[in-house]
């Protein structure tokens, strides 16, 4: 067994090279003209494929423990591998909530057993996500799961004093608070973006200001106490302006955007199909333009999926009764190609930064988001951008079916994913 020989791949979209993976690392890279030969290595014909460092997701809902009917660590990491991910951060809003060392270690162990990608648990900020008192952040940080990102995602840490304390407290172990920015009083019963479409549909509005007010407050708090803030799923043009201002002041804030907020608008709600019900809600074309530009400029640092599986019962119903959230892992890279690469806003090197290097840095995960050079860990995604494909249910390996891309034609497909030199995906199919 002498690893894998990837022929003719284009690292970050550059000139074709041959790459040899062995013992979990990139053993050698050479020009194709040198006809790299490795006895016993399995060959992958990679002509035309883009090689990226394995993708890292900052925002994944794996639903285990508690809602194994919707997703498990195993099924979610399979979807991740097929989407080109080698690492995901598992959000804390499970049942029980990941608010103790015990629960985060359980999720971390399940990830190890599944083996399709590395799973880094996110710890809750407050006990039970109730927003009343801090969870044992230090214990989670010191646990085997080595938690560095803390989030009450799904809920906002809306109490300003609690948010301030959380930001301060995690400084002692270099943690970061990832905020789901949603002012609760402004969004009571909210169903979709507040604007022209909600006015017509008679669905309760989720105003942009409810996100922007929290981000504005939090960047000021982060500045005041000298802490790191990460903003989850930024969805509005106004949020982009606040982040731009905060970064220009040198505030330690990072931000993510989801693939769906880069592609879909609130017009989708006109169908009343709960597939398009998500939190924060789909916004307007104007917001999409701002978000794309912000991602291109680096005002938004990373793409994160907010992969949120839901059972059929929670989606095959009327809009108001449906759960918020949509699948993201399997089609994220295609959506980014469609919205950012094909539009010439990002190069493949930029994509590597936004979907691997930077998320790995924000999550402080070692051995992910590394350069594609000899001696580095062999966490690699091979992607064919020339394919166009119709998104259908049958390709979904998630336990849930709630993808908003169903029936859409998207570009590109992940052909292979290597985790520490072993393929989790080959020829577009899961291995094992």
């Amino acid at each position, binding site marked *: 067994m002498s690893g894998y020989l990837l022929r003719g791949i284009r690292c970050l979209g550059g000139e074709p090279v041959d790459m040899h993976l062995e013992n979990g690392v990139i053993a050698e890279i050479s020009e194709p003209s040198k006809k790299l030969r490795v006895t016993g290595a399995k060959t992958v014909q990679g002509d035309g494929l883009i090689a990226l460092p394995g993708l890292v997701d900052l925002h994944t809902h794996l639903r285990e423990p508690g809602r194994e009917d919707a997703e498990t660590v195993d099924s979610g990491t399979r979807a991740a591998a097929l989407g080109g991910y080698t690492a995901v951060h598992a959000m804390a809003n499970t049942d029980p909530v990941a608010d103790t060392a015990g629960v985060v270690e359980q999720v971390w162990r399940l990830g190890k057993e599944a083996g399709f990608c590395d799973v880094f648990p996110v710890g809750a900020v407050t006990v039970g996500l109730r927003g009343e008192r801090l969870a044992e952040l230090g214990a989670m940080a010191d646990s085997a799961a080595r938690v560095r990102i803390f989030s009450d995602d799904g809920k906002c840490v809306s109490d300003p004093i609690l948010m301030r304390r959380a930001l301060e407290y995690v400084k002692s172990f270099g943690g970061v608070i990832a905020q789901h920015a949603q002012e609760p009083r402004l969004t009571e019963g909210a169903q979709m973006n507040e*604007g022209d479409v*909600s006015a017509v549909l*008679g669905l309760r509005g989720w105003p942009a200001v409810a996100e922007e007010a929290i981000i504005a407050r939090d960047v000021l708090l982060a500045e005041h106490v000298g802490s790191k803030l990460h903003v989850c799923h930024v969805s509005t043009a106004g949020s982009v302006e606040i982040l731009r201002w905060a970064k220009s002041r040198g505030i330690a804030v990072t931000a993510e955007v989801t693939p769906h907020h880069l592609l879909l608008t609130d017009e989708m709600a006109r169908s*009343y199909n709960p597939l398009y019900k998500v939190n924060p809600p789909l916004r307007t074309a104007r917001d999409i333009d701002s978000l794309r530009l912000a991602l291109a400029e680096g005002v938004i640092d990373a793409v994160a999926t907010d992969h949120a599986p839901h059972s059929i019962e929670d989606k*095959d119903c009327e809009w108001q*009764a449906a759960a918020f959230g949509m699948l993201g892992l399997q089609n994220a890279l295609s959506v980014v190609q469609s919205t950012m690469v094909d539009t010439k806003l990002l190069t493949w090197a930029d994509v590597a930064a936004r979907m691997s290097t930077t998320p790995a840095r924000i999550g402080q995960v070692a051995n992910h988001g590394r350069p594609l050079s000899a001696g580095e860990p062999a966490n690699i995604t091979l992607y064919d951008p020339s394919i166009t494909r119709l998104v259908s249910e049958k390709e979904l390996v998630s336990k849930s079916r709630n993808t908003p891309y169903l029936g859409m034609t998207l570009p590109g497909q992940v052909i292979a994913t290597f985790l520490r030199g072993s393929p989790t995906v080959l020829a577009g199919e899961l291995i094992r």
Partner: protein
Amino acid sequence: MNRHLLSAADLSVEDALRVLDTAEEMSRVADAPVRKLPTLRGRTVVNLFFEDSTRTRISFEAAAKRLSADVINFSAKGSSVSKGESLKDTALTLEAMGADAVVIRHSASGAPHRLAHAGWLHGSVINAGDGTHEHPTQALLDSFTMRRHLRNGKGDLAGVRVAIVGDVLHSRVARSNVLLLATLGASVTLVAPPTLLPVGVEKWPCSISYDLDSVITKVDVVMALRVQLERMSDAFFPSAREYSRRFGLDTVRLARLPDGAIVMHPGPMNRGLEISAEAADGLRSVIVEQVANGVSVRMAVLYLLLAGAPLTDIDYKTLGPS
């Protein structure tokens, strides 16, 4: 016409006039000694009411029965609809029963849309009021009533000036009326405190005013919307007294209406809040007629959706009363 009536926006001007003209024909049935047509014999109309509304249910029931349809009343109120799955399960049950039309009232905006398009059932779906979205048959009966009073029951409503006053934000009646009245050529002004107008209302085909007194002298129709007192606790307005002082249709305002102008209300009324007893019961009020016209309009809608015949094919004499 579409197979479903989910929104007043589903109706082209031709469709809307066809419904109104057919409703005029139907109202003659209502006046006839035998108040029944055999048109929908053997067809099943289900009244699926997830929300209490005796007056709307009775109106649809009477309409269906006068067309000789079999009517099933399915009151789902009290059953667990919070999970939402019961809408689907109920739909599958109705599909198995072979419902030709489902008249649905639901507290969730878009529930009729889901019923029509989720692939759960095949019959026609008629929206009898969904959440804060629409109530298209109410708008049809309102236009029908306006047309009778202001246009001799014929043609469109071009040039008719309508003020709709009150809680537009939460009103399905207002949404449907704005759309239908625009289709029929009327000019609509919504009058409300800014808190009770939705963000995005600027894009609607109507004008907006915060001042009822400046509008009331220039309208042919004033329609007061029901105001729910619990809105006060959500700070939409300070008090019932202040609301009625600024937006209530009282005797003083009634006197300032132009000659021939009519007063409407979709009901049920809060007398003394959005409308005074004098306005509700006075000579200008057509509120009682609205109720009667509801049956004719709903007969027309059921007839056109289920029998599918355009207006020119309806011949009262050849159909004959049964």
